């Protein structure tokens, strides 16, 4: 298009002027204008054509340049957004310029690859997190206290068991506390040195060692520490096992062995001493009878009195050594006994001390020599009184308890089973650990010289051991002391509720015992309770009677020890005749057989009848 305002329309100079104007515009980048006029002069016309051609070419170049620039700007912007994490940015893949188009495609492919890579990393991250979680749960529930420490001793991780052991929470510990806060100061220097050495070379520090843990309340616990370095890090992982209980059990065992040795020694000494005393006492008594001089008689009497006291002392030592023969063991109603005996206790402790008797509703029976009960109660009550000079409270409790296997794991000297628990508690001055350790040793006393023999508690200990029982002592200084006496029971607790009618029967029983007295005794009881009794005084007679009456005999009670044919032989032959015959072996001492019920002769009548009924009622 020509310029309509051109002043030099037709002249050469006008045309040239127009041409130069157009060239200036082209130079400025304006290619919108063209020279529309024609000239007769071929040279001029060629110039016009050239200028128009130049305009066209320059326009194409300008367009290309601009498209290239816009493409660059656009891709630059997409790359920038991707760099900033905006993955919604997508490069344009449309451009007439091949390289701009390819750059757009490349950016998009790169973005896809990058996104795949991120997805892969995320997946791996999730896997790592899962493993990490699994590891955490494993470490948390492993049942042993665990902590992971950084090189600067900060605790990075600890598990629930560690929380329990120390009394601190994870929130308080992790990333905030150093492990040094959990151990006794006196162990720290050595432990810190191990910490440093381990980071130089793990073999320079022990893998496992015992140390002292301090919880948030200042309690010290003995622990076994096992430490290892975590590979590729400067962190260490440690397991902490509380061995206080184990140590306590070890000490218990050592203590019990010590008491055992002391018992043996006491018993030997007392035994020898007794022999000498028998001679002293015997000859002194003879001498006393023979001399008539009263003043000499007085001297001899003093010798006799001193020897009697010495004999009493040796008796106590024998009790401690558990060699003193058991006196009259009988079924004692403990509730009634304690109720009656509390009057004596009240007299011993005086009015300043309140006495509480805590008895269960159910009556508890126990086979014991009542004089032993008296020794136990009097000794403990006297000690309690002495521990409460300013007054206080003495409680005597009684109950039945059952000790399970788990309890016996931590108290290896106590067998699981049923026990009678006699509990004597005072609110007195208490005692420290040192005294507690020596409490039951003979001649150990905290009383002033001349006030105590030091044999009271060792006698109690001896008596309790004689019944295969245990004594546990709990004491706190200025708070009081509790003695717990566990006496094992073999009964099933049915004694108190036995209905006499249920003990009756009408079956035929063959009773075999070579000893006439017990045989007649048992026979009369069985008859009294409705049974038909066939008696045999030896094995041969028993077999003869059994052969004749095998269909009517419901039960055979056979004494274990008999001349000619032993009880076991008789049982064997009876079984050959009638394999499913119900049988009870009877003996004077406790015995047990795998496939047969045994019966102690010294059990109470009710117990014997109960056991017989139990066997008869059993099917097959």
């Amino acid at each position, binding site marked *: 298009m020509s310029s309509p305002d051109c002043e030099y329309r037709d002249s050469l100079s006008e045309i040239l002027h127009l041409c130069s104007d157009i060239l200036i515009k082209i130079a400025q*980048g*304006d290619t919108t204008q063209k020279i529309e006029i024609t000239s007769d002069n071929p040279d001029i016309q060629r110039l016009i054509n050239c200028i128009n051609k130049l305009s066209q070419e320059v326009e194409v170049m300008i367009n290309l340049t*601009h498209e290239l*620039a*816009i493409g660059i700007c656009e891709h630059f912007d997409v790359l920038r957004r991707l760099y900033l994490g905006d993955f919604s940015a997508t490069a344009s893949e449309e451009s007439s310029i091949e390289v701009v188009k390819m750059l757009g495609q490349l950016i998009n492919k790169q973005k896809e690859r990058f996104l795949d890579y991120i997805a892969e990393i995320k997946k791996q991250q999730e896997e790592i997190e899962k493993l990490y979680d699994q590891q955490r749960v494993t470490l948390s529930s492993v049942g042993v206290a665990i902590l992971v420490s950084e090189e600067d001793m900060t605790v990075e991780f600890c598990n629930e068991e560690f929380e329990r052991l120390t009394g601190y929470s994870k929130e308080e510990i992790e990333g905030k506390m150093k492990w040094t806060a959990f151990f006794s100061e006196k162990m720290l220097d050595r432990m810190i040195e191990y910490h440093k050495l381990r980071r130089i070379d793990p073999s320079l520090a022990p893998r496992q060692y015992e140390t002292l843990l301090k919880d948030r309340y200042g309690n010290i616990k003995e622990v076994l520490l096992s430490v290892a370095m975590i590979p590729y890090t400067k962190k260490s992982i440690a397991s902490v096992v509380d061995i206080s209980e184990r140590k306590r059990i070890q000490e218990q065992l050592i203590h019990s062995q010590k008491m055992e040795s002391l018992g043996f020694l006491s018993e030997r000494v007392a035994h020898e001493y007794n022999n000498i005393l028998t001679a002293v006492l015997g000859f002194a008594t003879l001498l006393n009878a023979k001399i008539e001089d009263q003043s000499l008689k007085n001297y001899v009497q003093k010798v006799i009195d001193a020897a009697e006291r010495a004999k009493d002392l040796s008796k106590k030592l024998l009790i401690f050594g558990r060699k003193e023969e058991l006196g009259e063991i009988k079924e004692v109603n403990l509730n009634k006994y304690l109720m009656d005996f509390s009057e004596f206790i009240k007299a011993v402790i005086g009015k300043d001390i309140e006495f509480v008797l805590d008895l269960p509703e159910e009556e508890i029976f126990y086979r014991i020599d009542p004089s032993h009960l008296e020794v136990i109660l009097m000794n403990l009550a006297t000690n309690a009184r002495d521990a409460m000079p300013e007054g206080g409270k003495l409680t005597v409790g009684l109950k039945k308890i059952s000790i399970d296997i788990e309890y016996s794991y931590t108290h290896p000297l106590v067998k699981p089973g049923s026990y009678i628990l006699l509990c004597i508690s005072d609110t007195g001055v208490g005692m420290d650990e040192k005294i507690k350790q020596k409490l039951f040793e003979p001649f150990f006393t905290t009383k002033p010289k001349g006030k105590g023999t030091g044999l009271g508690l060792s006698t109690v200990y001896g008596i309790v051991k004689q019944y295969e029982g245990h004594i546990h002592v709990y004491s706190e200084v200025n708070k009081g002391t509790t003695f717990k006496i566990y006496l094992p029971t073999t009964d099933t607790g049915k004694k108190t509720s036995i209905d006499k009618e249920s003990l009756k029967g009408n079956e035929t029983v063959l009773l075999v015992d070579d000893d006439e007295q017990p045989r007649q005794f048992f026979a009369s009881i069985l008859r009294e309770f409705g049974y038909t009794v066939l008696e045999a005084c030896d094995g041969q007679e028993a077999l003869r009677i059994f052969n004749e009456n095998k269909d009517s005999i419901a039960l055979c009670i056979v004494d274990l020890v008999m001349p000619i044919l032993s009880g076991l032989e008789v049982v064997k032959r009876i079984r050959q005749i009638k394999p499913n015959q119900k049988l009870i072996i009877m003996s004077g001492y406790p015995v047990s057989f795998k496939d047969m019920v045994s019966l102690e002769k010294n059990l109470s009548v009710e117990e014997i009848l109960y056991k017989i009924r139990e066997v008869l009622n059993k099917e097959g």
Partner: protein
Amino acid sequence: MADRTLDFSGLKCPLPILKLSAVYPEFKSGEIIEVIADCPTFERDIKTWCQKLGKTILNIEKYNNKVKVTIRI
């Protein structure tokens, strides 16, 4: 009132939009800027640029052979 003004007078296209592309990432999103240039193809360039990069043209003003374009980043 624009937050800032960029004067590219004297620069030949497509230099103004290339310069604009280089500096605008420093601006905050939503900022109003004025871009001035005197190249005859600038107006076409900035329109394409805004369309491709998703920016809004608020005003175009021409004076003394120059073009002033107001855009929101």
